[in-house]
């Protein structure tokens, strides 16, 4: 799906599905799209997403022509899709002479849970699995996450994961309803993650 590339994607280097205490996490497949749309088209979810989705066909078009299928995992609880998470391999910044060593060493993660299932720690459980995929599965050295500063639920997940708030971009992001607002960047290094007690 999406832009085909001869390179092996990060998802292809991992084994699926991933199971946590309560959840099953696996790469998204076309039959998941209606469930994902049903979650993402809710106004309270769209509040913090990069775009509102209102039309199903337009949503399918966007998701099948971008890199979404290479970067999105669905989260199942008892066989039902209750959210989606993303995991994208990125290149760390490097001076030109060492750029090859920085390629794909960083992960960017995000999460979203159906409001009907909020308050049960599902996002935290899924995101914790993402960290394991990044650090253990893909050997990454640093994982980042970003959110609107007012998205307190997401900030709380970062905190529970042990991610450090590293930056706050003052009025850097334009929100469709709230105008220019702050953004927060959080990160965690592999060494730090390995030192977090279970």
């Amino acid at each position, binding site marked *: 799906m999406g832009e085909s590339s001869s390179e092996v994607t990060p998802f292809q280097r991992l084994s699926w599905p991933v199971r946590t205490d309560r959840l099953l996490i696996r790469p998204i497949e076309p039959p998941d799209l209606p469930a994902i749309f049903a979650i993402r088209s809710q106004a309270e979810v769209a509040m913090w997403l990069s775009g509102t989705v209102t039309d199903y066909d337009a949503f399918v078009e966007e998701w099948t022509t971008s890199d979404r299928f290479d970067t999105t995992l669905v989260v199942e609880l008892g066989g039902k899709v209750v959210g989606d998470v993303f995991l994208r391999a990125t290149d760390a910044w490097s001076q*030109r*002479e060492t750029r090859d060593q920085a390629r794909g060493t960083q992960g960017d993660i995000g999460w979203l849970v159906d409001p009907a299932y909020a308050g049960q720690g599902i996002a935290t459980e899924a995101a914790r699995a993402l960290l394991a995929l990044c650090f253990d599965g893909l050997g990454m*050295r640093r994982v980042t996450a970003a959110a609107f500063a007012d998205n307190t639920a997401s900030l709380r997940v970062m905190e529970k994961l042990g991610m450090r708030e590293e930056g706050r971009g003052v009025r*850097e992001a*334009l*929100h469709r309803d709230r105008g220019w607002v702050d953004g927060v960047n959080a990160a965690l290094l592999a060494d730090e993650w390995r030192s977090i007690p279970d």
Partner: protein
Amino acid sequence: MTFDRLSWPRRTERLTLRPAETPDLPAVFAIRSRKEVAEWMPNHPTSYDEWLLKLGPVGVDRMLVIDLYGVVIGDLYLHVVDGWAQAEVKEVATRAQAEIGWCLSPDHQGHGYVTEATTELVRLCFEDLGVRRLVANAFADNVPSLRVMERLGMVCEGRFRSESLHRDHGWVDGITYALLRADWEG
């Protein structure tokens, strides 16, 4: 092109700033190829031809030269970008932000030339280009650059642990400073 919309050159008390042109490039290379300069720069060029090739027209379009009585003593970086925005309001954020940077010959350090040049660069961004937010990035250990940011009134927004790979120092912290037009005007 960003610079075409403005009138040139810009003069400050002691300096002239203008878009880089081909005849300026050997002088810029002579500065950037020095080891002590390259320490904190994105690359350490050793061959003029190779540097020019990688710089390309895009690199030249983002470069201003700092001219001191006819001598190029450094360069400025200016890259206007779209602000981050949700899809529905993307147009409003078009060209709303700029990243700035600077590089001065070690032979001319200690006279406040960078501050003088970048103060004008900031004014140009806010007053002439209509940018609403300026960003500058540096290695956390590049203290002189951080001082410049502070003198410009920029505010430290983040320190990113072990995020950047340095050719000699390995993985090191990066720092981001920013300034909003509203704060600059106030």
